[in-house]
């Protein structure tokens, strides 16, 4: 076992780009589910909105990077939230779940469709939209930074990502400690009670959906910038469930919980991934039991298992307390 590689990968996982993307998505989901009780199973689509909003604006429509930024982070996610929220936020929570998962599926079909290749790049996706971003980088493209973990361009992405993360955390904190956040907490626990006190539950839920969606879009856009491509396979439904497990694990309804959850989850998954892969490569794990390609599937099995066990037995996660868990005894 090459422990050095395992540790390096895990550390990179804990603080690097991957973690930032999922952290932002998880923070968005925290607003949705942790604070408001919205069952958004389509956070991946919000992330895609950010990625494709930027890339399509630049590549397909020929706009400049800053317009793309605006479209991707603000306009697209807001429209998406409206489309999904207007029909469902007045109904039972299950309906938002159904519509958001339908939206993920719809995205998958539309983004991969060869018929729309001119617009979306279909399965290959779009590239070449992030030059402006990298031109702004103060880091030397050839140098390695931060204990030699990140090369120049990567370091720039990580830097911007962490700044974004901190801003999002600050906004979340401000929101939650404000009267607005208080109304949201009330709605999550009992909509009728909030309504009897004059609060428009539907509108608050919509605002929460939009804000969480914007956070997710930020994560998606950063991912596209970091990988310099916007591809459908980066935004599959299961990406959302990563964020969910991170959320529940870290304890929803607290702001730092999702970050901690994302970190722990990513560490577990990175570790398992690398360990299993090495085990397969040097024969410790026999071929009939697991091949190289199947290693990636184990991670999803763990996600599924994680959701089952957490939801059934420890909904408050590692850090949460019983009063503030997302999945409450209703």
């Amino acid at each position, binding site marked *: 076992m090459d422990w050095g590689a395992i540790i390096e990968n895990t550390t990179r996982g804990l603080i690097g780009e991957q973690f930032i993307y999922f952290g932002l998505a998880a923070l968005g989901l925290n607003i949705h589910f942790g604070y408001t009780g919205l069952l958004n199973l389509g956070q991946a689509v919000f992330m895609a909105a950010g990625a494709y909003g930027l890339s399509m604006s630049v590549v397909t429509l020929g706009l400049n990077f800053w317009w793309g930024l605006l479209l991707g982070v603000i306009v697209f996610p807001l429209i998406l939230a409206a489309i999904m929220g207007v029909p469902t936020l007045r109904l039972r929570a299950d309906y938002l779940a159904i519509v958001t998962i339908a939206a993920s599926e719809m995205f998958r079909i539309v983004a991969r469709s060869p018929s729309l290749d001119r617009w979306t790049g279909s399965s290959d996706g779009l590239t070449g939209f992030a030059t402006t971003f990298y031109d702004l980088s103060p880091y030397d493209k050839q140098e390695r930074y931060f204990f030699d973990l990140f090369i120049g361009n990567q370091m720039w992405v990580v830097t911007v990502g962490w700044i974004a993360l901190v801003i999002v955390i600050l906004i979340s904190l401000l929101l939650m400690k404000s009267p607005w956040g208080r109304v949201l907490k009330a709605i999550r*626990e009992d909509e009728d009670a*909030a309504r009897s006190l004059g*609060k428009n539950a539907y509108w608050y839920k919509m605002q929460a959906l939009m804000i969480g969606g914007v956070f997710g879009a930020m994560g998606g856009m950063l991912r596209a910038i970091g990988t310099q491509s916007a591809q459908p396979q980066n935004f599959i439904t299961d990406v959302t469930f990563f964020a969910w497990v991170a959320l529940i694990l870290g304890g929803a309804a607290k702001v730092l919980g999702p970050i901690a959850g994302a970190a722990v989850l990513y560490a577990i998954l990175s570790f398992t991934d690398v360990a299993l892969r090495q085990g397969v490569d040097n024969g410790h794990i026999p071929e009939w039991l697991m091949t190289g390609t199947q290693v990636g599937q184990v991670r999803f099995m763990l996600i599924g298992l994680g959701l089952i066990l957490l939801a059934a037995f420890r909904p408050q996660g590692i850090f949460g307390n019983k009063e503030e868990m997302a999945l409450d005894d209703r």
Partner: protein
Amino acid sequence: MTAESIPVAPALAGVPWEPGASKPDVILTASGVRRTFGGLTAVDVDHLEVQRGVITALIGPNGAGKTTFFNLLTNFDKPDTGSRNFEGRDLDGVAAHRVANLGMVRTFQLTKALSKMTVIENMLLGATGQAGEKLSRSLFPPMWRGQERANTERADELLARFKLDHMREEFAGTLSGGQRKLLEMARALMVEPTMVMLDEPMAGVNPALKQSLLDHVKGLRDDGMTVLFVEHDMDMVQEISDWVVVMAEGRIIAEGPPASIGQNQAVVDAYLGSHHDSALDLEADL
């Protein structure tokens, strides 16, 4: 008791003791209100006027449709036909949450004290017109700190009045059932309503707390608010209500001052079936 010796609140003097009777100063009316659930008619009320500034009780045997009617009056449900009017405003088409902004607040039979929030948070939730509740302002604390402080002062006063001030920082979930009822009432007052609708306020309250609750309800009227409550507890009805409305099988069968209700034959029939001749001693049995 004779008709002459039955006491009537001054505001309601001269009002005939009949269903649908017209009141001198009306705050809430319901006309031609019908609500059916798959073939079953739950509510069928021709006319009801609620007098401002008094305590009105809505009673009736089980299945009379009181709760359904209550939900219709508080706009938590929409009737199939008919109109409801609050302070001159037609409630049709008004969203459930807007009613509170118009001045009507309601409580729930199964108390909805938000147990995952603290007592003071519950109270602050009740305040209306909070700038900090708007998304745009919420991100800038200076824009709402002042209001928050003023609301907190008001909340603390109310908590003191309801003797809940020592539980200020506790999660509402840790309060006893009776304390939660008080909290819900105190929270409702934060709305500064003109009308308070109480849904079985005495349900599940231990006898020791009853008197305290009754006094608080009377206090609401004394402060100028109108109160309407649904109840099974006849003690409460007799003790504090100024006017009683009796429902049975979805219709209003009687109205009048509390002392007159026990002698009303229609009411007796509704509660006990139509085989009893003697007047009902409502204080004892029900």
